[in-house]
């Protein structure tokens, strides 16, 4: 087998050194009843050619987003990633290393994490950021639990514009931890409704911008209302490219900002792996979940980086840790950092403007096809009212080679918004794609 270096001779020699008659002797502690006599009932080993063929066949039974007009967003976005990014993340030294527990031989990973944290802090307009979470949805749940630790209050209010998967994840995880989660009714442009729900038991309010319907909101007033009652404001962003154009969460008064970082540097990957961004005010730093990388010096006084404040973490604090997270999204964070470094502030701003311009083109085309656009202020996503169920329309258009976005009902079947379709345009969307969609919508 190509991944196993030991030869039968090696094995025999090694057993001799160990003093064991055979390999079975090394499994002597396994109860007899549980010892399998031979391989389980699964196919035997296969060569690289055969395995690649099988996987190619499976891959061919999926329609890649790039195969034709494609308008899905809603938490995962198709962007162009420079070839340099994928080349660097496949370097052995990044791909096949682990958590930088030995900083002397992990400065590559550590300096990247320091750059990542610095980029995330600048994008979100907050002072500190961690070294990544699994994804945006779990970062959201962690932020809510962090608000509980900071405020010692139990209630979290989730706005009706929060991505339903994020709300469900937060409800599952934070509720299990004992919090009361109040989910507001799904509504297209009703972020301000959270203000009336804030009371003296509220640990935090969670507001997404641009929200699941694409609506961009200035949350400054929500921040003021939350702070007046001693609650924290958590701002969620699922489309990280929007940071290039829109006011940052920090600028609008957010205490914690969480985001899905997939848009920058990472492929769609059918939903994972992605990279959660997590930033907050400096005074909240010691309540953050996850790994943190910090600057220091070595024995010769040279600048270097280490994992720090690990007294918050599970391997030191065990049941008193701020989170149980261990493995995070290191390689996806690296991809994010490289892409962000290639873009720079200048490039991200330009990319964001292109995305916005494409969405304006999309909006005009959809309206031209006679459909009502429900999103008043948008970045690169819009919600559209369909004549019948949106899911049905999507099915019909798939038959014509057009993936016409995400029916809101797929994310949240009980909201009574079956006729709402979520559409997204990015720099990868062409004018021809938009024209094809408009023509199909008109005919449908």
């Amino acid at each position: 087998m190509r991944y196993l270096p030991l030869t039968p001779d090696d094995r025999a020699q090694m057993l001799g050194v160990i003093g064991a008659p055979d390999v079975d002797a090394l499994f002597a502690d396994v109860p007899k009843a549980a010892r399998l006599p031979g391989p389980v009932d699964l196919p035997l080993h296969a060569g690289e050619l055969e395995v690649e063929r099988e996987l190619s066949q499976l891959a061919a039974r999926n329609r890649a987003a790039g195969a034709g007009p494609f308008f899905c967003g809603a938490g995962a976005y198709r962007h162009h990633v420079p070839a340099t990014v994928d080349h660097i993340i496949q370097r052995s030294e990044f791909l096949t290393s682990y958590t930088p527990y030995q900083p002397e031989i992990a400065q590559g990973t550590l300096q990247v994490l320091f750059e990542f944290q610095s980029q995330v802090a600048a994008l979100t307009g907050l002072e500190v950021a961690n070294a990544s979470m699994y994804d945006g949805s779990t970062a959201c749940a962690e932020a809510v639990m962090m608000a509980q630790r900071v405020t010692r209050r139990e209630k979290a209010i989730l706005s009706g514009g929060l991505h339903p998967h994020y709300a469900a994840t937060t409800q599952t995880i934070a509720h299990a931890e004992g919090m009361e989660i109040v989910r507001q009714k799904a509504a297209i442009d009703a972020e301000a409704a959270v203000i009336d729900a804030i009371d003296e038991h509220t640990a935090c309010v969670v507001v997404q911008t641009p929200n699941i319907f694409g609506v961009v909101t200035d949350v400054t007033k929500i921040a003021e209302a939350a702070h007046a009652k001693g609650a924290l404001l958590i701002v969620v962003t699922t489309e990280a490219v929007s940071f290039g154009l829109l006011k940052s969460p920090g600028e609008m008064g957010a205490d914690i900002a969480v985001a899905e970082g997939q848009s920058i540097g990472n492929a769609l990957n059918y939903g994972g792996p992605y990279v959660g961004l997590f930033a907050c005010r400096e005074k909240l730093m010691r309540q953050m979940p996850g790994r943190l990388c910090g600057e220091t010096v070595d024995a010769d006084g040279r600048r270097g980086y280490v994992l720090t404040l690990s007294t918050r973490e599970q391997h030191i604090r065990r049941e008193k840790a701020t989170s149980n997270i261990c493995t995070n999204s290191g390689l996806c964070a690296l991809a994010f950092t490289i892409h962000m470094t290639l873009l720079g502030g200048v490039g991200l701003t330009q990319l964001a403007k292109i995305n916005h311009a494409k969405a304006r083109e999309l909006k005009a085309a959809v309206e031209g096809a006679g459909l009502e656009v429900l999103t008043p202020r948008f970045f690169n996503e819009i919600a559209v009212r369909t004549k019948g169920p949106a899911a049905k329309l999507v099915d019909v258009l798939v038959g014509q080679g057009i993936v016409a976005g995400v029916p809101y009902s797929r994310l949240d079947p009980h909201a009574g918004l079956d006729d709402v379709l979520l559409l997204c345009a990015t720099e990868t969307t062409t004018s021809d794609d938009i024209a094809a969609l408009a023509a199909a919508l008109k005919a449908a």
Partner: protein
Amino acid sequence: MTMQNVGRPTRPEGSTESVGFQSLTGGRGLVQDEPLIFELDGWKKTGVDLPEASADASDLAGLTRADLPLPGLSEPEAMRHYVRLSQKNHAIDLALYPLGSCTMKHNPRLNEKAARMAGFADLHPLAPVSTTQGALELMDRLAHWLKTLTGMPAVALSPKAGAHGELCGLLCIKAAHEAKGQGHRRTVLVPTSAHGTNPATAAFVGYSVQEIAQTEDGRVDLADLESKLGPDVAAIMVTNPNTCGLFERDVIDIAKLTHAAGAYFYCDGANFNAIVGRVRPGDLGVDAMHINLHKTFSTPHGGGGPGAGPVVLSEALAAYAPAPWVVSAADGFQLVEEAKDQAAAAFGRMSAFHGQMGMFVRAYAYMRSHGSDGLRQVAEDAVLNANYVKARLSDVMTPAFPDGPCMHEALFDDAWLDGTGVTTLDFAKAMIDEGFHPMTMYFPLVVHGAMLIEPTETESKRELDRFCEALRALAATAKLGEIDRFKGAPHLAPLRRLDETLAARKPKLTWKPESATS
């Protein structure tokens, strides 16, 4: 007259002694200091060519940001920056990486190639399921392999890492207890040797944690377990093989006692590599176990992730598995994305979308490559390699549990360093100078100065011998009192030992303009 040397072979001249040599610019040949991206004059640069965009964002008046102070680099500058940084990392592809509990094995590149096929990488999680049938089938096949290898009837694929899987497993257990009117059970029993994630996860779910004592031979103390298994206990969390690298001989009795007390058996599957293909956790009475695909099934560790932590579940817990999951119907594969109808008992959702698909592709490619016969050989070679290392080092170091075989990890304590002035940490740092990554240190907590060595099955005998010779030489040097070699170690790494206390006392987590001159 000087000889024309251009193009002729050269040979070393003068002394080959280079100890203490310093370059004029402070670098060390190929390993150079590398500034942060913020220090490379890129404030107005970009390395991406984008078309002009309509500058009109008038519809967003009052909602746009004034500036975005982040530097950019041209493509050649960015490439050089990150390649230089990469050279400061140790990696499996460079040498043995014996980090116990982490299963740092070879990462086949076929898996990387497969994960990057457009049909997997360029696939949107909310694309119509009629356009993602191949992905759903792959998930279904992966589930079949995981269930068959573990002898368990169900699996939740969506957890994103081991600790996330632990959380998923405990939430299933909690939901099952609540459904049976046993919601008052508030305690989880965890052995003292457990991974830190176990008690952290239990506390996260609101359980109180009680420790189970360990016997002198490194196993769960059955009598102590029995005495603590009361009507308040929701579950036990036991790692098997355990963190001492030993198989829990009484595991079937542990399961029976646990079930008799009305509790569930959560098994931490971090060490599944030791038994894959030879032992099915389902045959041991396990109710839930996460599988770190980035350990046993070789998806790359990537400098700290991403991982994937699917959880296999017993019949008793299967109904509570979180959404989503794949079902096979007459007209193709479907994705159940919400708790309703026949899936009403699902406890909720672990994350957005359906889990770490990119990791599923890699793990499945790895499983198919090995096959059922190869995976069995994986466990055998992993265990053989660990026992070989233990045998080759036992006369110079002190194995924590000398009697009987270990599984895939060899655990030593620091008794052999008594009187040398060298600590486990010093010894580990000296390994760096010999070209090896240190083993896991000071874990498990139950062994003094623990050194946990997990070589994995992808090391050749030659590399194991090289490693053992290096450790034997270091051990001999320590005993001879050559203490400076250890206290100052590492001497030959890109950096010397770092001041972690300073980092924690004055945390500096991001670059700030005022620090540009430091």
